[in-house]
């Protein structure tokens, strides 16, 4: 979340005082992202140094200063709005790694592990859904934020559902307590290296396993 660009967007409507910017930021993000006034002034100072905003107060006292966006600020805002967020280098997914590793842990009930995560995700989703349902239907800021988080969490639940369905199709574990799929040597080696080095799990699992999202 870029506070910098959010403040520029608020200033695109006209000059504003710092305190008002802080209040409007919170209102427009459905008060889900609290922002303290100190953060607002620090960010405004940085924007001013970069020539993206200018202030009309010379006395230096933050609350008395009114800020306005410069043409360079407007260009920066327009460019930022059209730049896709950094989706090219996704983080390693800890949940995927946990489920992969659990396949190699003797006695681990992988479907139960999947269910524990699913329940946790649904509980999180309940909190966002109920926040949204309790708000007025026209509270667009809150609805958009809640939707974004709900769709992200839904993606995880759907991956867990698919994992569960795949696990159900696996043959019963062998007497040693290891999953029968370990009999396939290449995959077993890949999974073993995933278990040994969690950081390498995404690569070991290879493409198409959902290790990257």
């Amino acid at each position: 979340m870029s506070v910098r660009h959010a403040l520029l967007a608020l200033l695109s409507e006209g000059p504003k005082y710092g305190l008002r910017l802080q209040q409007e930021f919170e209102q427009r993000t459905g008060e889900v992202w609290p922002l303290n006034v100190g953060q607002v002034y620090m960010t405004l100072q940085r924007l001013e140094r970069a020539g993206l905003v200018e202030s009309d107060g010379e006395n230096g006292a933050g609350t008395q200063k009114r800020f306005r966006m410069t043409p360079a600020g407007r260009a920066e805002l327009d460019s930022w709005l059209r730049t896709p967020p950094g989706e090219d280098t996704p983080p390693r997914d800890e949940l995927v790694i946990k489920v992969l590793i659990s396949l190699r842990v003797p006695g681990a009930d992988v479907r139960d592990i999947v269910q524990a995560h699913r329940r946790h995700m649904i509980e999180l989703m309940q909190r966002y859904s109920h926040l949204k349902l309790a708000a007025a239907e026209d509270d667009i800021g809150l609805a958009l934020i809640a939707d974004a988080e709900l769709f992200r969490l839904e993606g995880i639940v759907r991956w867990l559902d698919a994992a569960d369905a795949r696990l159900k199709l696996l043959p019963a574990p062998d007497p040693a307590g290891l999953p029968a799929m370990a009999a396939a040597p290449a995959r077993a080696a890949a999974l073993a290296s995933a278990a040994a080095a969690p950081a390498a799990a995404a690569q070991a699992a290879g493409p198409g396993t959902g290790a990257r999202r």
Partner: protein
Amino acid sequence: MTALLELREVSKVYGTGAAEVHALRQVSLSVGGGELVAVMGPSGSGKSTLLTIAGSLEEPTSGAVLITGIDLSGASHNDQAKLRRRLIGYVFQDFNLLAGLTAVENVTLPLELDGVRAKAARSAGMKALAELGVAAQADRFPDELSGGQRQRVAIARAVVGDRQVLLADEPTGALDSVNSETVMRLLRAACQRGVAGVVMTHDPQLASCADRVLFLRDGRVIDQTQALPGPESLLTPGPSR
């Protein structure tokens, strides 16, 4: 809280011998007035069987189903049908409105089957349609309504009269996410008027609108969500700003 819908160790077995299928295994569930419970599970987990048994459309192999404390299995088929019509409302994925009847006629049909006079039935039907925001469409036929309006009429039909239990099977299946949210708002509002609601779904967003979520796997309830914390728990500042 008094349970309006209660399932006590309900099991359902189809077929015998080698062909025996255990669709439900000792499922217990208690839903009070004002509560909306979601049941999540993959295809084949027993959701549909649970819905038909909870709605007394099918008898369990063992266990009991109580609606407003009444054990329907003790009643005659006639009385069962009567209680079912009076106490239980159903919402289906494909709305199931009768094409030859108007919106209000669809809503009042169960009341009229129950012997309610036409005028009283229409008045109850109009009240239910108004609560769902589709009173203006009362005299239209289903094919003259949008998908969202049809689903509203279907919910009105499910809550008309003194229905105490509302059962829904994938009630937003054919709708986009914003219309689905509206349907969930309406179902919640219906429950908050004192009805016990159960919705079967595999849609995580839909389930997350419920007060409680049960997870069904291979005919068993394997897990359920904990009580909801207040929304203020989401208001902690994120780490990276």
